[in-house]
């Protein structure tokens, strides 16, 4: 596990964004330079003053764009928003959501803290060519704030891109003109669809009418020329319907950029419902195979996320890339012998070890 949030101590009274630097040459105004460090932590100073952090070594945080959030009496927390050299950076823009997916990995809260300005500042400091993830809760509950931030960041930085997770419940026809702004070519919307049958999808997201509303949004997004990554989490309740979902996608949703079929993550709501929800694709791969073949037949790119390669039959293995973020990935002991380890996603940190180890067969 790579810790993303560290306890800190800071002189600032309001939250601020800065980039951590361990060397002094040509610092920018937004940089905070290393003051001292030892094996327990380090301290930095920038225009917002001095702050000290416990935990990760300073060198590992070199170049990170962080948000320091004072919480009173000098105490603070430091969030590593955009880690230098990592391909997996996500900004959590809200914890509110209007759906309640049965396997939600980020269970929603009723409160919202607006941090869009701080996130915007952070994005402008991102390393060249970064792909920045946006997540929640449901980011489009603050659609205007979100789109404004995206427009300003991508307008100022032609090298950056965003990937935004959204339940697709809030796109309107009026949004088309805005979404056709060329900056949105560098935005990909990750939108879940769990089944072709409205009742199944609605049940999984715990919202009546979600499927129908999502179809309206798809029409809007199609007319906007939006880029969409369709996402489907594999659950015991939708596995057998996966082929019919594939058919649906190849008919009505041809405009998506790709379809990601994802294995369940043992976190959030899924943790307590693990035995009901988790389905082992290793023992019943044929609906997945049928869905992948249907997608490939009709020219829809599809891939498997969070499927360890040894658990996928050989002809489909190329479609199972290393998808788990570095900060929450682990491998099992036998994996060190596997020749495909580098291309394999491994497991989530919180995947039950006993299940993981049973599932593994080094290649």
């Amino acid at each position, binding site marked *: 596990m790579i810790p993303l*949030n560290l*306890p*800190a*101590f*800071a*002189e*600032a009274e309001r939250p601020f964004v800065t980039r951590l630097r361990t060397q002094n040459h040509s*610092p920018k105004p937004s940089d*905070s330079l*290393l*003051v001292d460090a*030892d094996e*327990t*932590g380090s*301290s930095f*100073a920038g*225009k*917002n*003053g*001095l702050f*000290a952090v*416990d935990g990760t070594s300073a060198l590992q945080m070199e170049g990170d764009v962080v948000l320091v959030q004072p*919480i009173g009496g*000098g*105490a603070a*927390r430091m969030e590593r928003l955009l880690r230098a050299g990592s*391909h*997996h950076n*996500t900004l*959590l823009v809200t914890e509110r959501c209007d759906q309640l997916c049965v396997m939600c990995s*980020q269970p929603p809260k009723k409160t919202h803290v607006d941090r869009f300005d701080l996130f915007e500042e952070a994005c402008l400091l991102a390393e060249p*060519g970064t792909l920045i993830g946006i*997540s*929640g809760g449901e980011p489009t509950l603050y659609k205007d704030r979100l789109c404004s931030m995206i427009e300003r960041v991508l307008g100022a930085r032609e090298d950056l891109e965003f*990937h935004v*997770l959204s339940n697709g419940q809030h796109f309107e026809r009026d949004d088309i003109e805005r979404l*056709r702004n*060329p900056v949105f*070519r560098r935005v990909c919307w990750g939108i879940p669809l769990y089944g072709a049958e409205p009742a199944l999808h609605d049940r999984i997201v715990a919202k009546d009418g979600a499927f129908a509303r999502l179809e309206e949004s798809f029409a809007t997004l199609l*007319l906007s*020329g*939006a*880029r969409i990554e369709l996402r489907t989490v594999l659950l015991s309740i939708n596995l057998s319907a996966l082929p019919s979902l594939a058919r649906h996608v190849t008919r009505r949703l041809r405009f998506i950029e*790709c379809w*990601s079929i994802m294995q369940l*993550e043992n*976190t*959030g709501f899924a943790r307590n419902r693990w035995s009901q929800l988790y389905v082992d694709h290793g023992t019943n791969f044929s609906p997945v195979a049928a869905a992948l073949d249907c*997608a*490939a037949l009709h020219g829809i*790119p599809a*891939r498997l*996320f969070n499927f360890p390669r040894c658990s996928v039959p050989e002809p489909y*293995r*190329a*479609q199972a*890339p*290393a998808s788990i973020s570095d*900060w929450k990935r682990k491998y099992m002991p036998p994996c060190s012998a596997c020749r495909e380890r580098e*291309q394999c996603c491994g497991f989530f940190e919180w995947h039950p070890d006993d299940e993981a180890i049973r599932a593994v067969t080094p290649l």
Partner: protein
Amino acid sequence: MRSSRFLISTMLAAGFGPLDPAQESLAYVTTTGTDDPNSGTLMRLFTQDHEITLAQHRSHRSHSSHSSHRSGGGGHSSHMSHTSHRSSTGGSPLYTPPDYSAPSTPSPPPPPPPPQSWPVSPPSQRATPPPDDGLPALSGRSQRFRAIVRRVQLALLAQGYYEGGIDGVVGPAMRAGLRRFQGSRGLSITGTITPQTLDALMISSE
């Protein structure tokens, strides 16, 4: 080439006559590439000219490195030109666009980070032994912080910019002292402990 040398001397003779206006505009809309997504042409309406195939080749994205041939992973070599020698009725060039497919799409972010309950007071990462004076234990970060602040306070005191206690706490009096010092040295007046201030006070790292 002069037209009199040809069997078919004009295009008109070959049947390239007048056209339905819809047909005229079809050629135009499908071949003129503009950067303006609102130019109204049919497919541009849907795609915003996404150079999808090009976006895949950014090497910094971990997923693009897994792109091989077209989806299906059949390993089918698709680069071959079938014109080979001479073109013929069928042997025309076969061009395979780079991967518009499966693994070549931009790397999506992971599902959001696991829920963290934000601590009201930051937990210590290491147990610190209680100080001998019976005062409450301080965490590593706060100790480090206070140590540096004390050194700044001492330095300001030595140069006459500060008269308060050497307590490791940045209070209003210290901020005022910092501002006076920064002003006198031509530094940016922030009232905070900036790296330039530390340098000017000659406080180096331990």
